[in-house]
């Protein structure tokens, strides 16, 4: 365990890519997390979705976010868009199924919001939740922290 903590500290120092003073993988308390590194914030029947700090940190400077159209259907675990950084392209998977009710059009002009504010201004879509039971298979913040650490350690 001690070595794992040590490892996490090392990782923290290495992984500071574009936001030098941010700690490693900020995780917000009230959100749920998917194993493909998206977060979801549930308010009533609506779910706001974005990518985690951990994910944006690995990606580096985000230069383009491919957004779905309003009204599109998304499915839990399936891709609905993509994030492009200077170095790579990644799919964004939806943590819940439902209908897209709003997209963050600010990302068209300022994709960098995903780096600067992954949990707030950098949100990606809002979805009308189809099946609230799906939320049960997502991780809570503690589980997600542990998941990141374990996944890092595995590879």
């Amino acid at each position: 365990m001690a070595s794992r903590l040590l490892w996490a500290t090392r990782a923290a120092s290495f992984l500071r890519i574009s936001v030098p003073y941010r700690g490693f993988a900020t995780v917000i308390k009230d959100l749920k997390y998917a194993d493909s590194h998206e977060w979801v914030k549930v308010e009533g029947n609506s779910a706001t979705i974005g990518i985690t700090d951990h994910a944006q940190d690995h990606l580096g400077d985000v230069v383009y976010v491919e957004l779905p159209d309003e009204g599109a259907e998304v499915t839990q675990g399936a891709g609905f868009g993509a994030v492009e950084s200077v170095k790579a392209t990644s799919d964004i998977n939806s943590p819940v199924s439902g209908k897209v009710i709003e997209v963050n059009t600010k990302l068209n002009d300022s994709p960098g919001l995903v780096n600067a504010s992954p949990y707030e201004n950098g949100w990606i879509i809002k979805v009308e939740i189809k099946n609230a039971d799906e939320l049960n298979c997502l991780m809570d913040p503690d589980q997600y922290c542990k998941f990141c650490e374990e996944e890092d350690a595995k590879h």
Partner: protein
Amino acid sequence: MQNHPSVVVWKITPWSPPPKFQGYLTLAPLNFLCYTLGSWIRLSDCPNNMLSTQFEIREGTGEKIGTRERRKSKKEKSKFPFSPSKGSSPTNNQTNRKWIFAKMRGGQLWQLGQSITRRLSQADKKTVARRCFASEADLKKTVLYDFHVAHGGKMVPFAGWSMPIQYKDSIMESTLNCRENGSLFDVSHMCGLSLKGKDCIPFLEKLVVADVAGLAPGTGCLTVFTNEKGGAIDDSVITKVTNDHIYLVVNAGCRDKDLAHIEAHMKSFTSKGGDVSWHIHDERSLLALQGPLAAPVLQHLTKEDLSKIYFSDFRTLDINGAPCYITRTGYTGEDGFEISVPSENAVDLAKAILDKSEGKIRLTGLGARDSLRLEAGLCLYGNDMEQHTTPVEAGLTWAIGKRRRAEGGFLGAEVILKQIEEGPKIRRVGLFSAGPPARSHSEIQDEKGQNIGEVTSGGFSPCLKKNIAMGYVKSGLHKPGTKLKVVIRGKSYDGSITKMPFVPSKYYKPS
């Protein structure tokens, strides 16, 4: 939505002796996030989420020879999906040598992280030693390895070497800083080579398209090593030190095949009485110093007047007290130098350069190097130029000396000279496009939706703040201003052909 065509490319090339393989996994479009493989079996060591991935397997000609689906079970060992061509060693079977591309589909956010964190775990061997790629332990390290790590370098496997992809600055910041101030790159993975002997010039002229005899001593040029079919084996900067000494630098990823190629030809040349021998500069390290501050900073470290050394010139001189070879060239489009320094002096030189620049010249990794060379419109061998691409198609006709066009006498000359006369069928072009950045293998279509070519490198330009790419299109459709479509994840986006370089070059030439 379905899984998108993805960002990941496997390149596998036979290693000597067969049936062992060396290869690398790349997170496209950049060739720098990669794993060196001991063999195909190590596919099973891929991050788990790649297990459901589909590969496309291609021959060096680009011809698709099949697809393979990776099985999902984590425990299942993947099998080498095709048999290696028997006896294809680098020396005896150049043309049959297979470059196999396996294009993976289904990219995910996490893949990128894997490649970085894998390296991180590698850094802490005590914790995770058993999970490492066996072959990662075999990665070569430059003498600056510890220096990179101490400066926050994120080391990744690249062409068999552990190299920094970036440091603490983001790729965007590094790219901009190179153009504004300057960058220092460790490029010691590249292979410096001297050819010596009174016949070294006629010998080299058999292998490259440049007019080597016509170069003045102390000058150099970009050239291409060709094969019998006129395809490019590698691109390289060659310099004529004296009439019986040529210095050249070849790509790290091509080192083995280049050396095998040169050696094979050298044997037959010397057996006919030719006087040529070589020396591989493994005792030296190579630093690239690029950007507007390169010359002023380097001037602090040498007595020689650098203002008399122009673009492409070569000198042997003392820098920071060590005997160095410098070539005023680079891979960024900026003015700058490539400095070959005795390995024992390399760390001191790197420190001195950074100190003298008062922090303005920053250590820069392979990530920004790729952005910079793309902005400068320079080819990356393996992406923008391959064994089946001729220098004419690649837009490097200018590198074929006038005398060489008249006389030929290099490998594949018939094919290449005919192409110059008739025009090539495809041409390398630069393009701008809307939407997401076009990455390699994105399809290029004309306005009616007909396929006209493919992107070979692309990305977001940190300097221009828009998407740039290069690729090959059919001749006739290659003129700047031609409208086209680029297909990215099934959607087509508007684009147009544009002149390269995207960012004007600032080479130091006599006025």
